[in-house]
């Protein structure tokens, strides 16, 4: 039996034109191709991850699917409706875009939820129950009756998430929903997303640049880069494609000359400086040299000697499990975090 397609996207392109200022009186038009022929589908009950660095086109894509933006060309269907049937699409989705923005500062959290619930035509009695449940679920507590302007970033983010759930839509579109949340709250939000999918069979598009999130949550992942989907599959399948290679993580002080020397070795497929979060629960990051090679047992001695000869001080070497980050690096030659943070390097 074929599964119901909740979202179908075919050949979507989007080109933005913007003015570039030259001095006080002159300007010139610039064209930016944000999407270049994106096609994919999402089935009912699926969590589909859109994984890519900042500026890859994730938000543009989500905005088109929520009818906030019109494509330059291509077609899309959401819950069976074409993009021109925007009222029906709007009623079918709950969305979380623009991070913590999108709440009325001068209204309390409860008033915001009541307002948006009413705009989605949720009957009053049901709305009250729904708000009470969301308040419990997201532990909003006393904050519900405070003006939004007094909230912290994390609290605003949770309230925006509650707003996305207020109409109990069959489709959820979440764009970087864990931004500004601390580790504990981010974990909790991911758990709720998973429950929404498992218990209520919601179809979810989850945009993120954090590969662990995509790995943990998504049934399928589309890796998007420079406006194109460059890989799309089950996260495990994507990683399995790299199984004939080994990945080594080298920590220490590694000059660029040492990295280049290792990369030039015939046994080595790639050697890139990447960044990862420390495992101490904080958002602190550390840099490491990520080496993809054919057989790590055979290559290890020459890697160590090449690094040492070129001035590297090695503190630790691990053979790692393949991650979606490796998939991204393998296809694009760049790291997800590289593009997101721009211009990081270590020595």
């Amino acid at each position, binding site marked *: 039996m074929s599964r119901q397609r909740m979202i179908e996207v075919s050949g979507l392109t*989007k080109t*933005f*034109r913007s003015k570039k200022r030259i001095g006080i009186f002159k300007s010139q038009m610039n064209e930016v191709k*944000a999407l270049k022929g994106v096609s994919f589908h999402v089935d009912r009950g699926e969590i589909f991850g859109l994984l890519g660095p900042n500026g890859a086109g994730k938000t*543009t894509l989500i*905005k088109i699917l*929520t*009818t*906030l*933006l*019109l494509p330059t060309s291509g077609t899309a269907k959401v819950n069976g409706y074409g993009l021109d049937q925007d*009222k*029906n699409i*709007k*009623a*079918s*989705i709950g*969305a979380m*875009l*623009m991070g913590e*923005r*999108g*709440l*009325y*500062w*001068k*209204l309390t959290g409860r*008033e915001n939820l*009541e*307002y*948006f619930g*009413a*705009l*989605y*035509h*949720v009957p009053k009695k*049901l709305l009250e*129950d*729904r708000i009470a*449940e*969301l308040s419990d*679920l997201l532990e909003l507590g006393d904050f519900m009756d405070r*003006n939004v302007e007094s909230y912290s970033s994390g609290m605003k983010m949770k309230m925006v998430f509650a*707003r996305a759930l207020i*109409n*109990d*839509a*069959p489709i959820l579109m979440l764009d970087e929903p864990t931004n500004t949340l601390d580790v504990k709250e981010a974990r909790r939000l991911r758990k709720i997303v998973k429950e929404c999918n498992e218990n*209520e069979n919601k179809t979810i598009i989850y945009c993120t640049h954090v590969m662990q999130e995509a790995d943990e949550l998504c049934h399928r992942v589309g890796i998007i880069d420079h406006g194109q989907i460059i890989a799309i599959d089950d996260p495990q399948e994507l990683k399995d494609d790299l199984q004939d290679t080994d990945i080594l993580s080298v920590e220490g002080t590694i000059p660029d000359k040492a990295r280049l020397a290792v990369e030039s070795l015939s046994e080595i497929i790639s050697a890139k400086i990447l960044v990862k979060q420390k495992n101490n629960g904080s958002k602190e990051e550390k840099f490491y040299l990520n080496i993809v090679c054919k057989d790590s047992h055979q290559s290890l001695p020459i890697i160590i000697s090449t690094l040492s000869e070129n001035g590297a001080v090695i503190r630790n070497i691990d053979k790692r499990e393949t991650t979606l980050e490796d998939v991204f690096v393998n296809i694009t030659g760049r790291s997800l975090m590289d593009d997101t943070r721009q211009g990081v390097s270590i020595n």
Partner: protein
Amino acid sequence: MTSLSFNQEQLGGLRLWWNEFGCMAKKEFIVLSRYKFSFILSFFQIFFIMFIFTVAALILTPPDKTDYGVGFMFYSFILFIYLSTALWDIGNSLREEQYQGTLESLFMTPISYFSTLLSRIFANLVWTSVNVMACFFFMTLVFGEFSLINVGLGLIILILSLFVCFGIAFGFAGLALRYKESMNILTNFLQFILMIVCAMFFPFSALPEIVEILARIIPLSYCVDLFRTTMIGGAPELLPFELEFVIVMLSALILPLLGVLYFQSTVQKAKHEGNLAEY
């Protein structure tokens, strides 16, 4: 969690529109009440403007025309203040939604543009009406009684004129989305141009001939002429009463529709350009 059965039948109908309008107007009232300082200041603002222009009129007027001068300024001002409220409130509240990031959230819900626009003005309109009444009382206190010839008909013309103002304001809301911060300049400019061309604070006879021709093609001019003469007496300056009434009535029907259509088209354009949420 409570499951909310999704019913697509719910996406249309007058009752639904009324509910949308109700909840949005309620939100506007709540937000308005959170700006208590502005709330109070708006009364003084109206009184100060009326006072400054009335005194300016009186120092140039022969003493035997004082009553006429005060009445003329007051009734002229009522239309101006409603026009100004409509123009500024819609534009400003849309801009504020852009600042807060709520405009995209709002446009992600299945609501009609008409209720979005109308609800924005409604709360301020109610408050402005209260202010205007208070001002009538204070003006009478400061300058003495002035003419009130036909209140009933005057009110009907005022309500029709309000819809003409809505039409202009709805169209302007579209411009607010497009021109963003330059809207303050545009609103000021339009307000002043309409104030002069539609002879809102002086008789049409004071206009140079070329401007008077322009006045005759703007529906708002007939609202001004009709309302003023109904309240202070005398014949309308531009056209016979019946003809002006028909023009005002037709404009009250057509302009809001045109305004909403224009607003809709600018939203579509913003969706193409991707600048709906830009501020």
